[in-house]
């Protein structure tokens, strides 16, 4: 990273002030750093944008935590960064949630059953990981607690 600013959170105004440059130059610089992966942005629209500067380029996480935090009302703090190359679906995330296995993760994972598009894929993965019983148990729990799609009969216990 060629800028001399330390990692941390900035608005465009604080960034410009600390760099000693104009607001427009600050926007240009932040935009360049964002392209290189050193800056992530939150806010926008009605909210003021907050720019987070990182020491190393960040790749957007797209794995288990991205899916579960998109769909579950109770959000999880990632215990590891998860990146996936390929088609990672809600079915994969259910299996990963069961493998992680703590109570909070399982609670959040229940909400993914509403987004299952392929029961075959879910049970193929479950059979591969020998987690069929656990998938049924979590599905039954999800049926009691949330609105969930009905599992096709051929996959039921």
């Amino acid at each position: 990273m060629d800028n001399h600013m330390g990692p941390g959170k900035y608005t465009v105004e604080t960034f410009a002030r600390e760099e000693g440059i104009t607001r427009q130059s600050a926007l240009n610089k932040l935009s360049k750093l964002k392209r290189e992966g050193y800056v992530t942005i939150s806010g926008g629209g009605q909210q003021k944008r907050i720019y987070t500067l990182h020491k190393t380029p960040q790749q957007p996480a797209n794995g288990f935590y991205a899916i579960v935090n998109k769909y579950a009302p109770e959000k999880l703090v990632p215990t590891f960064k998860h990146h996936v190359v390929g088609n990672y679906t809600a079915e994969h995330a259910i299996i990963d949630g069961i493998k992680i296995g703590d109570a909070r993760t399982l609670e959040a994972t229940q909400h993914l059953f509403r987004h299952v598009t392929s029961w075959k894929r879910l049970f193929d993965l479950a059979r591969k990981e020998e987690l069929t019983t656990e998938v049924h148990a979590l599905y039954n729990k999800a049926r009691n607690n949330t609105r969930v799609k009905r599992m096709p009969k051929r996959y039921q216990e």
Partner: protein
Amino acid sequence: MINTADQEQLFKLIADYLPKDLVCVAIGGTAMMFLGYKNATRDIDLVFDSEGERNTFIAAIGELGYKEKALADVYDERRKKHAGKPRMFTRGEERFDLFVKDVFGYEISTKQEFTERRDYLGKNEFTIHLLTKEDLIVLKAVTRREKDQEDIETIIKIEKSIDWGLLLDKAIAQAKRNEWMLIDLEATLQELKRITFIPGKHFKRLYEAQERLHGKR
């Protein structure tokens, strides 16, 4: 040399050639690239849990044209004789260094705590775990190849928050498996003193551990 984007595509391609799901741990330059410390590496270092898993991986890269290479010119005599030496495979400019559980006496397993996980979903799933930056530094100190010291310095310059105590814990816990580990680590830390402050208490601990280890012999 291979850059981050090419490495991602290569792993995705390998996942398509794997006959079954595989999990491994990335160390060295590969891990540094994933963690954003560098943009390119010459060697892709992977550690598998068993010989069988390594052979599965070798079969997949064999189909892609990677050929086994002798360890000469890369590792010194002492490391070439060590049980925890890798098997090397090369094709063009990139090279795989493939270890099984043991990197010159430093034990690594996919079961241990990891900070990042990368999944490549092809015909089968290829999963790569990344360890902590302290593990990376100890491993670089243990392998001590041409660019390893340079890589350690890169990590130190970017990361101001190295837990030297944890780093020593990890090295001392495994020192029995490689009598040179603490000596190599001490040499590395001495060189690092040029660019960062390492409190003297850590060196004292290192020397005490060394004495205890040699006292037992």
